[in-house]
């Protein structure tokens, strides 16, 4: 099962190495990780997607809590939450089909953010399913390059994930 963890950390040197090092040495796999600031100065938020059994994720969370720079860990997969990631795709348009691609992008509410004689760069945001769906369609035309941010997530409603 896939789990998405929201990890609030002190914004100190080496904290990313502490977290990623913990995953590798305990044999946990990170699917993806996204890091950014929060509304509280000095506190960053890591969104970590990890695949594994309930027992494994429980152990991951406990081990994360042991890191002194980690302030809070929440498993957002357990709650109702909004999850998004952003993907940029460079599509080969050397053989034409520019308008076909445009149509697909519009259907997925994406944007064309760069155009050149041989390629287009498409921006899409959404959940994992949507990313996979558009990727499948664009593959048909030839994908030259893909970059993804990794998931970010917030609880739905007024609830917040906050330190303390």
């Amino acid at each position, binding site marked *: 099962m896939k789990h998405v963890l929201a990890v609030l950390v*002190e914004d100190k*040197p080496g904290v990313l190495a502490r977290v990623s*090092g913990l995953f590798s040495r305990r044999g946990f796999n990170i699917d993806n990780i996204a890091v950014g600031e929060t509304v509280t100065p000095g506190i960053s938020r890591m969104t970590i997607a990890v695949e594994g059994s309930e027992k494994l994720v429980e*152990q991951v969370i406990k081990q994360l809590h042991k890191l*002194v720079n980690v*302030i809070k860990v929440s498993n957002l997969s357990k709650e109702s939450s909004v999850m998004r990631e952003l993907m940029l795709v460079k599509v080969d348009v050397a053989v034409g089909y520019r308008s076909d691609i445009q149509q697909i992008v519009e259907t997925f509410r994406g944007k064309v953010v760069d155009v050149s004689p041989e390629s287009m760069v498409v921006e899409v945001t959404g959940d994992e399913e949507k990313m996979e769906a558009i990727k499948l369609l664009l593959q048909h035309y030839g994908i030259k390059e893909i970059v993804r941010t990794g998931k970010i997530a917030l609880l739905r409603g007024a609830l917040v994930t906050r*330190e303390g």
Partner: protein
Amino acid sequence: MKKKTASGSTMIVKALQEENVELIFGYPGGAVLPLYNRLYDSTLRHILVRHEQAAVHAADGYARVTGKPGVVFATSGPGATNLVTGIANAYMDSVPLVLITGQVPSSFIGTDAFQEADITGITLPITKHNYLVQDVSELPEILSEAFYLASTGRRGPVLIDVPKDIFDREAEFTYNKNRKIPGYNPTYEGHAGQVSRAVKAIRDANRPVIFGGGGLIRSEAAPVLREFAQKTRIPVILSLMGLGAFPGDDELYLGMPGMHGNITANYAMTEADLIIAAGVRFDDRVTGKLDAFANNAKIVHIDIDPAEIGKNVMIDVPIVGDVKSVLEALLKKIQPGDTGEWLAQIKNWQNDYPMPCALKSTGNAVKPQYVIRELSRLSPVDTIVATDVGQHQMWTAQHFIIRDPCKFLTSGGLGTMGYGFPAAVGAKLAAPDQPVICVTGDGSFQMNIQELATAVNNRLDIVIAVINNGYLGMVRQWQDIFYNKRYSQTALEGSPDFVRVAEAYGAIGLRATNEEETTQAVERAMAEKGPVVIDFRVEAEENVYPMVAPNCPINDIIIGGEQV
């Protein structure tokens, strides 16, 4: 008002004084020169070791005896990397240490400068926390955090890496102990609901055992455990790390479980319907094959580290908290069940399966078990025993009667050869009035034999009992049992004459090759001043029994050796 400022070096010295540090174990070098220069003017006592690894082990021994954090100084690069084994050892056994390393000057960091090593990166997985000081103004807070982290919650080593220029820089200095750390808040009191569930489980149990470990010693829970066991009449099993948390000669004590554990302890653990696990972490050397471990038992697990609960075995009643306060809480509500029948069953096992142990030598050598029993018999009750790692360690765990906590120092988790002798040095400095014995092997002793200089220089009365079988005995034993007696690289040919090595360092060297000489040597060594090395020539191919092969159920025991 003018604010008080201090240099980085002065901050460190003052912080150590604030924390009531009496002793520093260390070794100077280029990057840490400014700190040693400041130390020259202070009243702090520094023990100069002969290898940085020994500094950590000595600080570790000191910490295990006193319960206070051991403090280590070392220089950058090789000085720091030489600490690594000692740090990993302390981390695995949850020993509080504060280590301060010099680093190349800030402006040189990342340039592969002379004697530069990324010691915070290297020790990331083996410290409770570590710091690379970026600005001298952070240092007071880092120092107080380091002592607080090392000595609270689940204890552990904390390293502070200080670039050389930071030692000389000045900043405002005030020292506040026990600062609030946002991401660090250990739980000490057990959850009342879980405590009630444990009370009920104990009341309903017919065949309960207490399985205690090193956590009992760190939390000073031994007196509570004794009261608990006596009131409930529940027998006690102790892990290697827990030895001393319950009197080794008490009628309710069953011994150590696991690979070289007491047969009764293994049978009791397997047959128990309730295990009250207190400050233990179910190491593979204890559980053997996990699927077959204690299948008949409900398990109550008390530990200060929530991550240990449910890590290896499934737990029925998890109690996160300080093991002493949880045992006290249990004691208040406990309704003892009737364990009479169970204790009778245990008595039968004890009669049927005594510790297999040959004491009579057959050739021109003494039996190692005999040596350990003589050491145990002839040493006063307050004796501290430090061991190295291997056969002699297991024989000591089996045959040396440990009655009190903080009297048995051993490398449990990491299994570090070379730990014992420097740990004994730290122990003697921590408790000058208590006799200290280091039981070591001819392999282990040679891993830190240079510390004879430290022991002689500080006139430390330590008896170093070398169980000399001419082999890396435990590895040879595995080659004997699992590799068809193919003794690949385990014969220690070319070892020195330990008596003359001792004498060359200015210590006393004795040798014993039979039972009579053993008794005489131990008696004399206990009476002598300064370090005494006794070279016990023991039977070369004696094996440690009982033995459970790795990943086998712990009641599937190889009972070798002769019965007493």
